[in-house]
């Protein structure tokens, strides 16, 4: 059950108003109600929502939403802008210490993703900033927490400092910093145990660690699926420790992630990174306007496009785009796409970034099992050149022959052809939506 995005919500509100001529102030109020509901369903804290809706309403009434021919779009635009502004205007980089080592402390609730993010961050720092990181295992409570960090260290081929689970975190950190200095590690990441923000003892422990480590950054790691309680958690951690940044994890899921807005609103600390998977390279800088789109249910189109762009040959992309436009896409293009898609990573991940992916009939029918790609390839390769370029000639007897040739069932062949048709229809729709865009973009909609 994916929730309705703001655009859809406003659409249905507006269709009720249609025929009345101009939009009244009461209509704006009605639209604001939809904005409120959309944000609440996205898990933005209700107090934050209230404030936000008030601000937006002022702008909406002040600006010419009421006179606009497309009041729905106008409202979406304002909401989107305000959301982006609220979540920060730009990517905020890590602050490095003048005098090495730079020390980063990871804190947060249980299971938020601290240990994993510690590994990811170390990886990124080494790659992008050419530093020599040391990972510090300061979680002495969770069973096998040290082993977990050590395993990540091994995968990354990075050193992990540990004194076992019988030594206090304060002491571990003290020794770790000495170790870092003598061994010339200029970047120290401290993985701490998950804890409840209301746990006085354990919060006190973090304060001690902070005093000892004098970290340049204290990152609050937050699960993007967090609900209304995000404000309490963020507020407590911030009050006790003064967090300098936030890492939002598990954004590869399908949550709207309204917690991002709540946390920013109560702490003022910038969201610096987002976690997009369990693997150690799945950490990316935070983009406010993408997050805004996501919260509003508009899909993470930009991320998808960026991903597509980096993976695709630009010329091929342009050519594909024009094919999508005039819908002259053939099975030959399809098979080329398959190869591209295979290079891009898990398909379900890509699809989940598409706006309204859940609703598109064409998409739903497309099987996303990666193994099936091979079957698809086999089927297409059993078509003649003529058939590939002119799919409409694929009658029953041709289909039977293709099934035999590829070793797949006739049903599978039928399904593929049906999917191909669906996809073409979808491309037509999408190309309509893409016309407004400046850049030439090829989206491999498999």
């Amino acid at each position, binding site marked *: 059950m994916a929730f309705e995005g703001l655009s859809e919500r406003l659409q249905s509100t507006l269709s009720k108003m249609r025929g009345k001529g101009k939009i009244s102030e009461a209509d704006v109020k009605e639209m604001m109600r939809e904005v409120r509901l959309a944000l609440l369903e996205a898990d933005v804290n209700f107090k934050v929502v209230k404030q936000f809706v008030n601000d937006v309403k002022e702008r909406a009434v002040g600006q010419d939403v009421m006179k606009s021919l497309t009041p729905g779009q106008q409202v979406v635009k304002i909401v989107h802008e305000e959301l982006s502004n609220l979540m920060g205007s730009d990517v905020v980089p890590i602050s490095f210490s003048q005098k090495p080592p730079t020390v980063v402390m990871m804190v947060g609730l249980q299971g938020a993703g601290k240990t994993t993010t510690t590994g990811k961050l170390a990886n990124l720092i080494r790659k992008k900033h050419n530093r020599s990181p040391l990972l510090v295992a300061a979680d002495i409570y969770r069973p096998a927490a040290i082993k977990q960090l050590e395993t990540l260290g091994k995968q990354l081929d990075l050193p992990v400092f540990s004194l076992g689970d019988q030594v206090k975190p304060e002491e571990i950190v003290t020794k770790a910093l000495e170790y870092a200095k003598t061994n010339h590690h200029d970047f120290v990441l401290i993985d701490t145990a998950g804890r409840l923000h209301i746990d006085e003892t354990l919060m006190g422990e973090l304060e001690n660690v902070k005093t000892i480590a004098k970290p340049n950054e204290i990152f609050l790691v937050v699960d993007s699926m*967090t609900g209304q309680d995000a404000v309490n958690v963020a507020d407590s951690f911030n009050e006790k420790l003064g967090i300098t940044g936030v890492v939002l994890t598990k954004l590869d899921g399908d949550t709207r992630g309204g917690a991002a807005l709540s946390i920013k609103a109560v702490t003022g600390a910038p969201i610096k990174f987002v976690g997009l998977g369990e693997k150690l390279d799945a950490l990316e800088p935070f983009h406010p306007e993408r997050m805004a789109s996501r919260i509003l249910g508009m899909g993470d189109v930009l991320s998808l496009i960026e991903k597509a762009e980096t993976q695709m040959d630009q010329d091929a992309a342009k050519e594909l785009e024009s094919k999508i436009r005039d819908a002259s896409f053939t099975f030959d293009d399809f098979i080329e796409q398959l190869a591209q898609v295979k290079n891009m990573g898990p398909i379900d991940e890509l699809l989940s970034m598409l706006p309204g992916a859940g609703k598109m009939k064409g998409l739903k029918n497309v099987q996303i099992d990666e193994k099936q790609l091979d079957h698809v390839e086999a089927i297409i390769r059993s078509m003649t050149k003529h058939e590939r370029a002119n799919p409409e000639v694929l009658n029953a007897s041709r289909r039977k022959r293709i099934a035999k040739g590829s070793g797949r069932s006739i049903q599978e062949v039928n399904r593929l052809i049906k999917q191909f048709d669906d996809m073409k229809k979808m491309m037509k729709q999408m190309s309509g939506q893409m016309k407004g865009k400046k850049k030439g973009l090829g989206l491999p909609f498999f």
Partner: protein
Amino acid sequence: MSFFKKLKEKLTTSTQEVSQKFTEGLTKTRDGFASAVNDLVYRFREVDEDFFDELEDLLIQADVGVTTTMDLVEDLKEEVKRRNLKDPVAVRDALVEVVAKRLQEDESDRELNMQDGLTVILFVGVNGVGKTTTIGKLAHQLKSEGRSVMLAAGDTFRAGAIEQLQVWGERVGVPVIRQTEGSDPAAVVFDAVQAAKSRNMDVLICDTAGRLQNKVNLMKELEKVKRVIEREVPNGPHEVLLALDATTGQNAMVQAKAFKEATNVSGIVLTKLDGTAKGGIVLAIRNELDIPVKYVGLGEKIDDLQEFDPEQFVLGLFGDVFEDKNEGALTEKEDTNEDLA
């Protein structure tokens, strides 16, 4: 017997039964919620639209979700009309009643479906919600009931996951069937089932890697694990328990739906209820899905697992409200009236 009499009786007769731990764990939850309700009740002298609006905010703040909140408040409005309730205290009581009813709907099947022979329990859920920890706690509970328990280290993916389960196995004193990191989870579970059979175990609990419900391939992998159990054990798995983090917002509903579809989830464990998250998602889950909540997690220690008892839950959630009603509330209200007079 009237609803409130019954609850009152339950409150007095079962106070001792209401385990210390449960009450402690829920104190935060209850205090927050109950005092907010009380605030609300005393701020409004009359029950009007504003009152219901505020009530809506309150439920939304507890992660109940917009749809369920609206439903609930709608019911409440009706109840208020039907009973011709005027004063907020009476309305508050109606609220408690409506909520309790929702939670009590599926009373029948909140116990584990234990077999005479081998019982297989499969744990599923998204990343970091508390599957492995809950398995440790549950194994401890079942073992102390005199059953022989075995664990299967079906999370072969996450760093340190096998060792984590191993530590729990040692703590509880039960065997853990494991293979190396990266091996096929279905194969681990297959091995474990054979081991459990040959060693005549009462219960086998299978851990699985955390996975986000929108990852098609990972969900398929989970289906495969389940199929292995189906094939190897008659009527197995006998329980598929979905771990949900009480801190999770509306996505928990999406999770429940997706995991139900993939593995036919038979029950929910609501973890981390010892935090300040209100756990209101339980209401939404009861309302929209037909999956009973079986356990709640109230901490990281071995005995921090409690059976989910809807009445206890409501009593915990509204405990203060009741005490107020039966003792202090009326006087307080009279006081208010006097003040105003």
